[in-house]
């Protein structure tokens, strides 16, 4: 698949995207749910030669996807997933969009149906700076990964890395890989405390 933009310099790509790129073998088929302006998909198409497509509801973002030359459907994630057959993609990406969908559990189950493997990235609500703001400031936390005030946040669900691990356990999902980030650093020690972002590679075991 060719493309309208020049090949991006991988070294200038933010760590979060590089981590996701590393999880996906070249030539895979990928669906990016809530693909935004298409930056990650574009990277995947350009550097990994994936067969990629996206779903995005925002018109401006969809416009930018067109500019980058990637296939995208302007739909909401919750309605759009039923269009796909079982295991239509090697990977489905839900990066920074899971916490914004209304019926999170339904979307997650649909995602696992459509994709062989699912990559989920979300902001860790109990990052230590958030905890400090809550405990000592008495305020709803505002951090680089959760940058919105309580009154204008698009996020509907606030979860921690431990929450998600527990969820996978109860739903019998296998976590094949988990990477934890604090901005442009990888966190290995006490991620539920020190990481702002968790990125999980999961698959259903049923």
């Amino acid at each position: 698949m060719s493309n309208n933009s020049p090949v991006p310099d991988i070294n200038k790509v933010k760590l979060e995207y590089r981590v996701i790129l590393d999880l996906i073998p070249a030539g895979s088929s990928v669906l990016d749910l809530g693909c935004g302006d298409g930056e990650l998909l574009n990277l995947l198409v350009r550097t990994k030669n994936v067969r990629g497509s996206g779903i995005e509801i925002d018109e401006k973002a969809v416009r930018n996807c067109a500019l980058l030359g990637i296939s995208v459907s302007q739909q909401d994630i919750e309605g759009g997933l039923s269009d796909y057959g079982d295991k239509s993609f090697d990977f489905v990406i839900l990066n920074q969009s899971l916490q914004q969908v209304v019926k999170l559990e339904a979307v997650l189950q649909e995602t696992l149906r459509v994709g062989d493997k699912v990559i989920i990235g979300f902001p860790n609500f109990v990052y230590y700076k958030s905890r400090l703001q809550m405990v000592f400031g008495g305020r709803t936390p505002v951090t680089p990964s959760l940058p919105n005030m309580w009154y204008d946040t698009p996020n509907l669900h606030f979860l921690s890395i431990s929450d998600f691990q527990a969820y996978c356990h109860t739903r019998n999902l296998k976590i094949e890989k988990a990477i934890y980030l604090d901005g442009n650093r990888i966190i290995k020690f006490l991620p539920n405390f020190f990481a702002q972002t968790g990125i999980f590679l999961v698959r259903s075991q049923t």
Partner: protein
Amino acid sequence: MTKTIENATEGLGLVETKYFTFASAPDELILESGEKLGPVTLAYETYGTLNGDKSNAILILHALTGNAHVAGFHQGDKDPGWWDNMIGYGKAFDLDKYFIICSNVIGGCQGSTGPSSINPKTKMPYGLDFPLITIKDMVDAQSHLVRSLGITKLLCVAGGSMGGMQVLQWTVSFPQMVQTAIPIATSARHSPQQIAFNEVGRQAIMADPAWKDGQYYGHDAPSRGLAVARMIGHITYMSDISMAEKFGRRVKEERPEKKFSPDFEVEGYLQYRGDNFVKRFDANSYLYITKAIDRFDLTNGAGLEKVFKAASGIKFLVIAFKSDWLYPAYQSKEIVRACKQAQVDVSYCELNSTYGHDAFLIEVEEQEHFIKNFLRRVSDE
């Protein structure tokens, strides 16, 4: 919106309609109904330059009452072709890169063989002796035109409304001849509501005493009926908001002479549109073409995704408009869904517009963005 002839020197300048005649006896075109039609003439226009390997041709297909004159000016005309804002140098369909063909349809009355054409057997206009035609028949005829130009594969087929139906039919009838498809504000099959509006239009024509079972050629045409049909059409092409913005509840200055003469501006507008339309369109063609649209059902009773399996190599850009209530976005989404299930590469955008169904003729900037980038992507491959 309205351009004058002064602009003719800037864009495409003067253009002419051409005519392609084929399917003379005994090699008539076999229609979907099994009936034969021939000879067949198709009116078409072309712009830009066909490249050496004939790989840059794009076929544009028009809506119900459109014609082959999609861009540029005809000698003496005040207005350019119906999609002039989309076709030209640097525009969505960029003549610096692409060779554009716009083909009329059989059944029509604007240069192609239709019910007002002379029946070679009787030397009289066909009238209702003209066979019922389908969208598939229109596309079959166009395939002869495209081949006659030496083109074996079209870079793209694109069109809105009934033009979009032809686009979809092209991808199913001739998948090997189509590289990409842009169906706009259209449907893979007409809904009961869409059929209902067309039926009211047809009834208006057939209720006009001048219609005379279609044998009115040489006499007064059923202009009242056709004008009413057009008025109904215009209502469905606009939206509640676009009508409110265009007319409000404004009334004419002078009191109408008769009790029920039009006094609201919207009434006057519809009458004006209706009266103008009858000067350029044949009532029987309106019957035949609306029937072809109503009978259109690409699914053929099966799942649309099964139909699209044959089109698996084609890339789609599907465009819908939020305020289009005649061809609502859900119909475009059905096309997108079928593409996805058939593993066909598809992009979909649902553009914000208040213009209703007419948006595909008016919303130039947004369509240009998506079409230009889509064509750039696929033509670079």
